[in-house]
């Protein structure tokens, strides 16, 4: 029966596709759960880096008035040792 075998093959492929979809849903679920679990620490890291960047900006602004802080900034590579003034290196980059 040609038609019967075609139906059987079609049904078999459909079952395989259904199992593949179930597997994909499960791995998507676990990956999403992992991402959600990681997001608080990523947000915290970003907040802290923004905070440190703001502190660094103020420190660099201060270094224009008082170059005594330059050795510290240069040692941490936040400012270059060039004669033409310091350049800022972002903390978060």
């Amino acid at each position, binding site marked *: 029966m040609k038609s019967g075998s075609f*139906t059987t093959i079609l049904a078999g492929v459909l079952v395989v596709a259904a199992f593949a979809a179930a597997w994909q849903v499960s791995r998507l679920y676990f990956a999403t759960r992992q991402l959600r679990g990681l997001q608080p620490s990523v947000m915290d890291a970003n907040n802290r880096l923004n905070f440190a960047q703001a502190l660094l900006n*103020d*420190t660099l602004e201060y270094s224009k008035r008082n170059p005594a802080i330059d050795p510290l900034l240069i040692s941490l590579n936040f400012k270059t040792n060039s004669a033409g003034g310091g350049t800022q290196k972002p903390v978060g980059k």
Partner: protein
Amino acid sequence: MTESDNPVAASGMTRPSEGPASQREMHEELQRLRSLFNTTLLATLLLSVAVNAFLFYQYRIIRAELDGARKLAQEFQTTKWPLVNKLVTGLQSFSQTHPDFTPILEKYGLKSFPTDQVAQPGQLPASGQSGK
């Protein structure tokens, strides 16, 4: 024998004389049903393939985000956070000899510590707790 007395005729069933025609009709009906079932299977299969493709695409996006988040968190822990701690420690030491820098530290909720005190890691307050 009247028609009402014949239960076969009364219920609408075919009489034995109409057998071959009825079988042919049933066979055609079966073919139509089989064709309809195959069409439905094919449509469901196409839908399933589309769902699989969508799920695969979504998984790739989530996976890329997850890898990026992991990399960022690890880089923060191993590289950036120790550097920020060094900066804060250095600035706190600096403010001991340069009191005019203290307002900047206080603006961010950072206190100057005595020179003999050792800076503890993780002393930078969260951005929400700063004195901004």
